[in-house]
């Protein structure tokens, strides 16, 4: 008797099967996360319980989770669009910062002179443009010069972060911040309305959900979305069909980068109220959103759910950092493990794996 493992390619993938595989991947991932807890001297069951209690188990936790879901949904749905076309935009972090700078500048300069209902939309518009510009650069480089977009988007992250640092210690440094490297605080009219007793900036949340729906419709209901999917699924076919790679990729990356830019505006106008260190404005949303998009099977609508879920992990991660004394990087470990298991799960999505007990060709008795 021997165990036999047989794999064959699946022809049809049902939604039910997809959900089962994703749930299985996450479960397996959490087992490994548990092992990491044991290795760092914490009780894994207690730690996992604290994570979920900290994020979904209380009103305060839920409000924080929604707050952190805002940038994740915005960026995640934009990345879903890019990943559809197999354009690996790893630069959302930098695109977010550009949005923060553009939006913050509009808020600082126009805020004192204009009412909120004029300033706030202008901030979002400027932020979108900022992120879009930063997203279009790697798109142009890739189509015109064949520059690998993973590297170019990443390098633009570093460049954006250093650029922001230059601004906040130099020309944009606030006169009212007692020497801290911040810009001045945004005037009243340029700060966003918060849901009472929370940090949920409702305007950005609304934009995030509406944009996720719009992007879903763009991908599945428009010619542009169809072209992106063809580019992603079969480059050769796209070439034969005469799809304009340059136009498609540049427009797609303008949207993808613009979404991250909106997230940057939200963080500045809703949370910080001034420009500050890059790592304070973003805390890695651009990278976490990659997993958000992947968990959502690169479907913008599903990023609303997966963004909420990962926001919970971030909030819960903060909670256990304090109660268990684990370093901030613990969340990175979660993210890495969960992403690894999600892509391993893809194998079981594409293949049927059967384990059978039977007599093998070699009879060991």
């Amino acid at each position, binding site marked *: 008797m021997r165990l036999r493992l047989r794999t064959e390619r699946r022809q049809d993938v049902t939604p039910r099967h997809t959900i089962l595989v994703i749930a299985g991947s996450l479960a397996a991932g959490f087992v490994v996360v548990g092992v990491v807890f044991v290795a*760092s001297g914490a009780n894994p069951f207690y730690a996992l319980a604290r994570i979920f209690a900290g994020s979904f188990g209380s009103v305060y936790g839920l409000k924080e989770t929604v707050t952190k879901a805002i940038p994740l949904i915005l960026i995640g749905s934009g990345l879903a669009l890019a990943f559809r076309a197999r354009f690996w935009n790893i630069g959302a972090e930098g695109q977010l910062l550009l949005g923060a700078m553009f939006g913050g500048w509009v808020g600082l300069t126009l805020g004192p002179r204009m009412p909120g209902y004029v300033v706030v939309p202008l901030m979002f518009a400027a932020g979108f443009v900022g992120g879009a510009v930063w997203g279009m650069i790697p798109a142009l480089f890739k189509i015109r010069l064949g520059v690998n977009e*993973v590297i170019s988007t990443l*390098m633009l992250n570093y460049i954006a972060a250093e650029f922001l640092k*230059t601004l906040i*210690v130099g020309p944009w440094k606030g006169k009212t911040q007692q020497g801290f490297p911040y810009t001045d605080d945004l005037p009243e009219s340029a700060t966003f309305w918060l849901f009472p007793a929370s940090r949920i900036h409702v305007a950005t949340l609304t934009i995030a959900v509406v944009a996720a729906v719009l992007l879903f419709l763009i991908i599945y209901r428009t010619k542009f979305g169809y072209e992106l999917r063809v580019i992603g699924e079969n480059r050769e076919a796209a070439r034969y069909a005469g799809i304009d790679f340059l136009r498609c990729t540049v427009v797609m990356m303008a949207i993808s980068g613009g979404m991250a830019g909106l997230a940057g505006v939200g963080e500045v106008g809703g949370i910080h109220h001034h420009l500050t260190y890059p790592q304070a404005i973003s805390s890695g949303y651009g990278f976490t959103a990659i997993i958000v998009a992947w968990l959502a099977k690169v479907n913008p609508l599903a990023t609303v759910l997966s963004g909420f879920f990962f926001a919970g992990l971030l909030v819960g991660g903060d909670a256990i950092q304090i109660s268990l004394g684990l370093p901030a990087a613990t969340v990175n*470990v979660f993210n890495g493990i969960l992403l*690894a298991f999600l892509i391993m799960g893809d*194998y079981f999505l594409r293949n049927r794996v059967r384990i059978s007990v039977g007599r093998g060709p070699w009879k060991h008795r």
Partner: protein
Amino acid sequence: MEASIVVSVLTRALVAGTPLLLGTLGEVLAERSGVLNLGVEGMMAMGAVTGFIVTYTTGSPWAGLAAAILGGALLAAVHAFVSVTLKANQVVSGLALTMLGLGVSSLAGKPYIGRPLASKMSSLAIPGLSRIPALGEILFSQDVFFYLAILLGVLLWFLLSRTRWGIEIRSVGENPAAAETQGINVSKVRYLCTVIGGALAGLAGAHLSLAYSKSWTEGITGGRGWIVIALTIFALWRPLRAFAGAFLFGGIFVLQYLLQPLGISPSVLSMMPYAATLLVLVLAGLRGDRRKLSAPATLGDPYIRGER
């Protein structure tokens, strides 16, 4: 400029270029076999932290060096499993690897932040040669990692272009189906190349924590892993060209400190290596045809038997 300054700048450029060279050699090997591993930043961080912890606890930098090689190789094995056996998306797997490596290394390294290393990897003056004026100081009084990197680079060049193994590795990267009909085990070659590539990235990380900064800090790799991937393209996947790229970028890292007294904002200076990386890729793009010809044909694609 005084001669002594030139000597010191060149010496430091070679030191700063060493981890870039080690990492690039590893990535060249992996990519030549067709496996795109974007997890270099994570594997470097792993090597840096395991190297530091083992050196700190055992007192032997050689043990640390071995541990760093193992650390990088182990992480690369995860990528090999996911991308070769499970045939998953190599870009996303590499990103997961980076997150994992950076996360695990800061988790493990947390207690060691700011601790000085008692036993360092000291530099090694080669008898006789190190006496040569100027050149002796620049080339022959470096740390062990530098000599290792040079040796490994020449070795890799020889392996890839002058041996049967090299032909096998290249054919697996160019045309795995044809390689298989020749009796080559495609999976085995890709596993080996990815894991050895990871070992080299681990070694590069050890250089950062044991020889370059001689301490462990979070974010010690500072994007070098990504620069390595760009250098692999810049080097057109050739070990000997990797030398030029790595030491050129080593020079840019040194230039940052050199320009500091001129009153340029430190943020603008720390932008330089990243801007230069982008520039190098754009330049590589301008000679697009050569790059297309040099890139391994199946880079990043999983090999599925019976499919083209």
